[in-house]
């Protein structure tokens, strides 16, 4: 089912959580709402679910106005960050809950409920835990049960609020791949909220980057990563080095290096360079930035160097381990930095 979010605004007291937001979600897509905490992404998700009402604007489900529809009737499945499983019920009863609370006329028979719950439990690969209580499960298992519970009512839309936020890194990675596979099988329109850019880029069909109640950019993971529309998006999607500069005749200068600037001339501009897009060299070239290696840190397969540059903050450079060993770089050594890619934005 497609969802249209039409000029939605929401305030909490003086705080503007959502500011005139416009967003279309296609039927069957997996969409990520990405942004720092307080950017309004969870509020937006809760408004889509009907757990929160917007001050202004409309929510359309499949072209029909659902703004005033109660969460009970919206047919959305909601998965909470902290699972929100019913502690006094077994896993089986948790998943069966949505079927059991139906009015008598539409409630399935006991055998039908049993069949359905076991089917869902095998879908999340936890059929063997049916008689346990939530307190006896691990975090990852609880979240999968919460998902099975949400799917039991055959929702038209699946909404997930930081579904993997409370899990440790390894489980989180496993679960997001599993969610992606699940979505590929079921094709249910899904929206999930996250502050983890890696998660959003890995799982989603499209990513919506939000900041301060507004949408910064909407696009596929490749689009938002390779062609960030705003400095915020560039900064938020990965590590970044920042140089202050100014644009003159279409060029921004940083030390001896020059970068093409799409924006017009301005006195103040910022140049962003990603740490892995910088080449190190021992030979001075006319387009390189001079500095001294002040630190090196091994991060598994990559090595991160900190380089002190005159008139700038510390610049981070990321190398693969092989490149680092081939180069034989030493702390204290003078080097020249050649950025391969850079983006120039007018400074705010």
């Amino acid at each position: 089912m497609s969802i249209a979010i039409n000029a939605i605004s929401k305030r909490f007291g003086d705080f503007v959580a959502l500011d005139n937001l416009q967003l279309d979600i296609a039927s069957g897509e997996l969409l990520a709402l990405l942004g720092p905490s307080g950017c309004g992404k969870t509020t937006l998700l809760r408004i889509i679910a009907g757990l929160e009402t917007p001050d202004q604007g409309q929510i359309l489900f499949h072209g029909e106005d659902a703004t005033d529809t109660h969460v009970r009737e919206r047919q959305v499945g909601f998965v909470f960050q902290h699972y929100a499983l019913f502690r006094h019920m077994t896993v089986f009863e948790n998943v069966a809950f949505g079927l059991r609370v139906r009015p008598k006329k539409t409630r399935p028979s006991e055998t039908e409920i049993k069949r359905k719950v076991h089917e869902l439990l095998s879908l999340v690969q936890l059929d063997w835990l049916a008689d346990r209580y939530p307190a006896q499960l691990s975090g990852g298992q609880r979240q999968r049960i919460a998902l099975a519970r949400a799917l039991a009512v055959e929702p038209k839309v699946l909404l997930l609020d930081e579904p993997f936020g409370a899990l440790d890194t390894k489980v989180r990675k496993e679960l997001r791949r599993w969610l992606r596979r699940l979505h590929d099988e079921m094709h249910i329109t899904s929206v999930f909220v996250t502050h983890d850019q890696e998660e959003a880029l890995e799982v989603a069909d499209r990513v919506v980057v939000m900041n301060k109640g507004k949408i910064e950019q909407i696009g596929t993971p490749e689009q938002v990563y390779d062609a960030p529309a705003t400095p915020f998006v560039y900064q938020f999607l990965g590590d970044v080095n920042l140089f202050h500069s100014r644009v003159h005749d279409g060029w921004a200068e940083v030390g001896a290096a020059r970068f093409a600037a799409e924006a017009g001339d301005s006195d103040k501009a910022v140049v962003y360079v990603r740490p892995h897009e910088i080449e190190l060299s021992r030979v001075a070239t006319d387009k390189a930035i001079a500095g001294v290696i002040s630190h090196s840190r091994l991060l598994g397969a990559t090595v991160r160097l900190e380089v002190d540059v005159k008139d700038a903050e510390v610049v981070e450079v990321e190398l693969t381990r092989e490149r680092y060993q081939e180069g034989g770089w030493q702390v204290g050594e003078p080097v020249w930095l050649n950025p391969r890619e850079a983006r120039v934005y007018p400074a705010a």
Partner: protein
Amino acid sequence: MAFKQHSVLPGFKLSLGYTLLYLSLIVLLPLAALIIKTSHLDWAAFWSIVTEPRVMASYKVTFGTSLLAALINLVFGLLIAWVLVRYPFPGKRLVDALVDLPFALPTAVAGIALATIYAPNGWIGQWFEPLGLKIAFTPLGIVLALTFITLPFVVRTVQPVLQDLEKELEEAAASLGATRGQVFYKIIVPTILPALLTGFAMAFARAIGEYGSVIFIAGNMPYVSEITPLMIISKLEQYDYLGATAIACVMLAVSFALLLVINGLQWWTAKRLGRRK
């Protein structure tokens, strides 16, 4: 020793020793004395004292009215706790403080005040008199006094649990299609049930032992509105110490059994809820 455990907190032996000594002196010693004193009676004499018709009637009054009062507070205590936790309203802190008043007020004062108001010529009593309903000086009056005295127990045990109840549980249930009623019966009640039972048990136990407030409003008519504590007092006034302790022993045994049952029930529900995360 087998039960000794290593702990980062020092002073285990000292604090445990103190706890045991304290409980022995304050709780166990008087109770033991009561039982020892009673054991001077032979079985037949004991039995005839505790099954005397007037005493039997007083058991009915005491346990019946106490149960009723505790049940009333189970319902209305939950309601008060619910309102105090869920809704903001002006004067909320004042209402919150008022709940504790029955704890602070001398029970005799409560008894006299209630008796005056609900007497056939009192402020409220006069409206019930023409309807043929007497409140003061009947078992109904006893229920009223006990309800007043035990009001805080259910409120104060349920309130914090209700406060901690995750909003998300209700939201999850609603998103799964549950109505408000279903959310209440299937999600909220099971979660607060242990606290409700604890409050109920404490209110009940307190009501059984209540003397001060009841005595003024009960009317103390033999076979109708005499409570068991009054039977003990009247035996004492006749210097019948053995008779008094015999009845006291029965009270002790019944109270203990009731607390045991209710705590068992509470333990069972808490176990079903599992550990909190």
